[in-house]
């Protein structure tokens, strides 16, 4: 059956999975009822990345993008657009932006993006292997099996300059060579889909939107290094991604693309899933291996590296989801092409989960070397509510805070490292003037302390001490010596911790001391929190000259600590105030102040 029109409904879990399902059903029903099901197909795709406006629906071939679509809107879109070719302006994305850009690739959100990893997300039905194959899926595996030798694959990868997207940025070809060179009866390929950075969901969307790309890459890796078994270690918190991977694995086996004698080449390779269980440290490769082995996920010292001695003591390649998703494209289009994108040291693109105080939060993919300003202001549409940008954090709990002065830095592994942050796996959190740097530091340290496996003392004891010092500072009891202590302990952690978790845990604090010393000084010397976030340092009061006595604040105060008669100046009883900020929010005359 040849379809002429397609209704693509975003099916990432970002929009709430059943919302997407209802929407899909609504479109299918409408199209069937109107007798258009012969030439129009409804496809439930992966995430479009445009989560702030979700659920999103796209009509092909004209590429009209509808946002915030509800099941009730299906009738109108089908009747007007699909049947009569008249776009429904009410829901069309350009309306709000009052721009004449209707095409997906033309809208500001997508303009600066370049999609390699997310090439299929939002375009194919992730539960259909045929859709994947129709877009060159498994062509790379076929090429590797029949036209390339393992050393050709390595050479192509080397020329591409692909580096690991899981955080550290280690050249992928070198990892593969290490494993390839070790003689062993068994070798393994592991896909790291643990995605532990709280506030990041790149890998999740890739797996939900295009699961076959990862399977194909793992088979290519297996062929190249001589492994016959692969494991995908995925967070149990991602049920939809797990389901889609299971479907994809079953389909690939049915098509002879996984299992014995793949495509008649004599090469055997199969993949199984292993579920994580909510431990951030299991993203670290040696801990991950321990976890697949069914043990507590405790890291062990390296070397030996997993590439040489990994899962069950056998040589093991561990790659991140995004790293793998690049590989089929590199095999088809060539390392040279890939190497032409990006900066001198960092090639290709990077996917970021852009979140926090930015207007368009969502998933984006940009060439390496794009600046933070382009990402946050052009793609992200700037800061919500017209507030002022304060900082961006890359690399999650292992990364650092980047101030406005460096917004024009082209992003790559080296430039972010020089700023005291890291590329990380792709979390990009934007903070505005209402966010307190010390509080954010404390948030991340609380996370790392909580997630520390406790095996080595620097991380176990040092992390806790840093957290206690930060708590003290946010309570207004900090001293200048505390800052020195933070630095000393932080540097010790970086040097002496056994694994990456402890080694990088002080990064947020150390970068803040470097770029935002004034925030620490305000908390310590002036006993003030500039963002009014640290409650012990905030008091709420009413400005007598502005208060008109409307009583609104008194009616909203949850503890009734505001007194005053109608049309008379109101007063807050500071002793009873719980600093909820309700009065500050509701007063229409800017008469409530805090500081």
């Amino acid at each position, binding site marked *: 059956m040849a379809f002429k029109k397609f209704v693509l409904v975003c099916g990432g*879990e970002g929009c709430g999975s059943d919302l997407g399902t209802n929407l899909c059903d609504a479109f299918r029903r409408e199209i069937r009822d109107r007798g258009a099901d012969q030439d129009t197909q409804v496809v439930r795709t992966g995430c479009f990345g445009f989560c702030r406006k979700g659920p999103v629906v796209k009509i092909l071939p004209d590429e009209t993008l509808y946002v915030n679509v509800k099941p009730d809107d299906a009738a109108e879109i089908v009747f007007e657009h699909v049947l009569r070719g008249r776009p429904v302006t009410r829901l069309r994305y350009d309306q709000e932006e009052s721009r004449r850009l209707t095409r997906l690739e033309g809208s500001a959100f997508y303009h600066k993006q370049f999609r390699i990893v997310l090439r299929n997300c939002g375009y194919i039905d992730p539960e259909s292997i045929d859709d994947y194959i129709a877009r060159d899926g498994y062509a790379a595996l076929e090429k590797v099996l029949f036209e390339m030798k393992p050393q050709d694959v390595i050479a192509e990868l080397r020329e591409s300059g692909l580096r690991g997207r899981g955080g550290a940025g280690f050249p992928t070809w070198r990892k593969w060579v290490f494993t390839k060179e070790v003689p062993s009866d068994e070798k393994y390929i592991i896909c790291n889909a643990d995605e532990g950075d*709280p506030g990041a969901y790149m890998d999740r969307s890739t797996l939900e939107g295009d699961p076959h790309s990862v399977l194909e890459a793992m088979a290519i890796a297996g062929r190249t290094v001589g492994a016959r078994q692969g494991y995908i270690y995925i967070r149990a918190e991602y*049920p939809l991604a797990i389901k889609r991977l299971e479907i994809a694995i079953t389909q690939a086996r049915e098509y002879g693309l996984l299992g014995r004698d793949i495509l008649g080449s004599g090469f055997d390779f199969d993949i199984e899933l*292993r579920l994580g*269980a909510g431990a951030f440290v299991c993203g670290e490769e040696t801990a991950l291996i321990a976890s697949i082995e069914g043990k507590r996920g405790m890291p062990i010292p390296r070397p030996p590296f997993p590439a040489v001695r990994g899962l069950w003591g056998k040589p093991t390649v561990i790659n991140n989801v995004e790293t793998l998703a690049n590989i089929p494209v590199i095999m088809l289009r060539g390392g040279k092409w890939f190497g032409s994108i990006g900066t001198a040291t960092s090639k290709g693109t990077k996917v970021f989960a852009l979140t926090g*105080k930015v207007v368009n939060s969502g998933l984006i993919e940009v060439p390496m070397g794009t600046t933070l300003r382009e990402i946050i202001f052009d793609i992200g549409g700037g800061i919500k509510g017209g507030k002022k940008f304060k900082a961006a954090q890359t690399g999650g709990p292992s990364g650092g805070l980047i101030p406005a002065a460096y917004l024009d830095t082209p992003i790559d592994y080296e430039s972010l490292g020089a700023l005291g942050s890291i590329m990380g796996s792709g979390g990009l959190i934007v*903070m505005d003037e209402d966010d307190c740097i010390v509080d954010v530091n404390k948030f991340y340290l609380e996370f790392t302390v909580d997630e520390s496996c406790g095996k080595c003392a620097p991380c176990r004891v040092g992390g806790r001490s840093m957290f206690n010092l930060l708590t003290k500072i946010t309570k207004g009891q900090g001293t200048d010596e505390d800052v020195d202590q933070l630095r000393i302990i932080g540097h010790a952690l970086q040097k002496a911790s056994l694994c990456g978790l402890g080694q990088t845990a002080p990064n947020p604090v150390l970068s803040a001391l470097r770029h935002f010393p004034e925030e620490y000084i305000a908390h310590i010397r002036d006993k003030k929190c500039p963002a009014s976030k640290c409650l012990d340092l905030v008091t709420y009061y009413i400005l007598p000259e502005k208060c008109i006595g409307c009583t609104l604040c008194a009616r909203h105060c949850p503890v009734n600590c505001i007194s005053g008669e109608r049309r008379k100046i109101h007063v807050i009883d500071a002793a009873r105030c719980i600093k909820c900020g309700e009065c500050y929010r509701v007063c229409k005359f800017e008469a409530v102040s805090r500081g």
Partner: protein
Amino acid sequence: MIAERQESSEGLTIRPDDSGHSNAREKTEGTGSVGTEKLTPELTDFIIRWRDKPGNLIMVLHRIQETYRYIPRAIAFQVADLLRVPLARIYGVITFYHFFRLKRPGRHLISVCMGTACYLRGAEDLIQELETLLGTGLNTVTEDGEFSVEAVRCLGCCGLAPVLTVDGQVYGRMTKEHLADILAKYGGQSLSAK
């Protein structure tokens, strides 16, 4: 044999009215008893199928938690027997991973995301409001056994921050004002009326 197992597994399906049962269990646990749950035939089959695969323990525990919503002590004993591993190893693993629960959660489980994106957009306020509405804190069960609230790491829906889930259903762009209505949907009217 099989019939007997089925019977006991039926007794385990979590019903709205079995909150008293959970309290009783808590007490008996204190006195050293291990409870009376028996593995269902499906679970036994699953465990036997995985028995010879290396690294099976975590996958088995996932499957158990899927069925019971936590890992009952009696079941842990039976898993130890079937997999032929020491009980201490099983508890070592359960306690290492945040995902596994040792206590039965309320009938409806509310998971509030405390990932970075959600934190910056006010997830703490949601937890506080839930505490006020439900009269119980994090990781405890309401008196009637209906609700429990837990804080989780990123749910992977950061674009919709702040996010919470109730029994797996995602609610995004939450504000304090939405919470009473959501609880009401799950039978918490009396609470939201307060």
